[in-house]
């Protein structure tokens, strides 16, 4: 199944899309976690996927990062078809998972070294590129400390550093500021903006914090129950409702629910686990 042919003509004349999905769908048993999502993300933009827990954000990210095969529909990521070229996609994307995934039993440097070697990056530039990535995320001083002694914010920045080593066209970050204190969150935002400015990397973040979407993202997409409700700049979306509207108001207006209460917490994840156990 190739979606490349269906997608290429429609993108003619527009800035090159780094992600384009075509009715991307994922079902777990009777639950549709992601429902016919078609969206386009441009090179170099910070794009927010906004919605409550269980809305399907993480499932969408898992499909776009080749971790989870879609049930139907397709996507082109970094110029490669998801169905036919997952290995090429992996070479050109970065991923910061929702969990703090850096290995606590290794130092910061050793974590980056592992990634550097898995991506088969040039040996001659190894030390300079790892040092540069650590410096950009403000971690040069703690490079030889075991990661289990890092704060949550430092681990996040290390993971972001790690995801930039191979200069990907796009980095997917799943809830990058979840569980961080306000200082940690603002530091992560700053580093995401620096990253985009210095490397021109597109960044997709999922979040259920409206202030994060408002301040960090160029464009946002509101997701609820696995469907894209609307896409636009934060200003555009707020203008739909009225002069003093917040993104929360937009979400409530579009879905008839608030982001805090919409959907059963973790419902999709539980259903997925049940579906997995029965197969």
């Amino acid at each position: 199944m190739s979606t490349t042919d269906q997608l290429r003509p429609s993108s003619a004349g527009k800035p090159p899309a780094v992600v384009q999905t075509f009715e991307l769908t994922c079902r777990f048993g009777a639950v549709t976690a992601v429902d016919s999502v078609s969206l386009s993300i441009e090179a170099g933009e910070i794009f927010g996927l906004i919605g409550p827990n269980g809305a399907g954000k993480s499932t969408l990210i898992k499909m776009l990062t080749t971790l989870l095969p879609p049930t139907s529909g397709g996507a082109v990521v970094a110029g490669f078809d998801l169905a036919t070229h997952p290995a090429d996609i992996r070479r050109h994307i970065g991923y910061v998972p929702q969990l703090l995934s850096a290995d606590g039993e290794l130092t910061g440097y050793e974590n980056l070294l592992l990634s550097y070697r898995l991506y088969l990056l040039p040996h001659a530039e190894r030390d300079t590129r790892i040092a540069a990535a650590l410096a950009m995320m403000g971690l040069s001083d703690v490079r030889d400390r075991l990661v289990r002694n890092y704060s949550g914010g430092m681990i996040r920045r290390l993971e972001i550093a790690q995801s930039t080593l191979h200069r990907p066209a796009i980095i997917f970050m799943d809830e990058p500021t979840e569980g961080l204190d306000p200082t940690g969150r603002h530091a992560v935002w700053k580093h995401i903006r620096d990253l985009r400015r210095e490397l021109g990397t597109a960044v997709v973040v999922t979040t259920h914090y409206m202030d994060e979407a408002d301040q960090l993202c160029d464009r946002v997409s509101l997701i609820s129950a696995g469907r894209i409700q609307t896409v636009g700049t934060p200003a555009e979306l707020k203008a739909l409702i009225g002069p003093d509207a917040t993104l929360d108001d937009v979400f409530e207006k579009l879905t008839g629910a608030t982001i805090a209460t919409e959907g059963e917490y973790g419902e999709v994840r539980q259903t997925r686990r049940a579906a997995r156990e029965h197969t």
Partner: protein
Amino acid sequence: MMAIPMTMTGYFTQVLAVADAEVQKLRHDPWELVSRAIQPILWLVLFGGVMAQVRGLSPSGEPYLDFLAPGILAQSVLFVAIFYGISAIWERDLGVLHRYMVSPAPRSALVSGKALSSSIRGLSQALVIYVCAAIMGVDLSFAPGNIAAAVLLIGLGSGLFATFSLIIACIVKTRERFMGIGQVLTMPIFFASNAIYPIDLMPRWLKAVSSLNPLTYEVDGLRAVMLRGGVSAYGLGYDLLALAAVLTLLIAIATRMYPRMTQ
């Protein structure tokens, strides 16, 4: 960035990158090795001390401790490797595995790297047991060829049981269920083998089971190379070949199943 053509060198770089991370962890926390050496030493001292009084346990009349040492070495490496799946599930729960899975490294390179990690762990543990066995007066051989063969046997055996464990982890998916299954698996693998008594003493049906058990070939090979004047029942070449073949098969299976853990 240009797509890098997948070469053999690149493949080995990725396998070694995974294994090297394990070496770095061992360097950061070497005490783990020491604590894991306690159980096999107890087997040698307590079990070996008593059973040495029983006649006829060692087939060619050598001291029972000499017969037992290769079996206990293989057993202790097995006991560590068979719980390797727990750390794989742990890595999945922490998100470490997701990082491996979004990297361009072929899945078989990741699985082979994990098997090699287990081999390194097994070998570092074998070193401790060699030292203890020497102190206890086991008639060890330190000929370079024998040491090299022992390294191969222990490396293959440890990688094999760790890969088997990884496959179990892909099936059961949670640590709690794995703990139960791991306990159930170690007993038959250990007792339906030649580790602590010769196969000749077994009833016919158990002989058949034990001849399908990879641990039997690991122990058989180790008896030939660990001890001075040691002999193998099946032939060292056959032992190595059997272990390598089973390891290859298990890596092929695990390569297909491993990505399911992050779905």
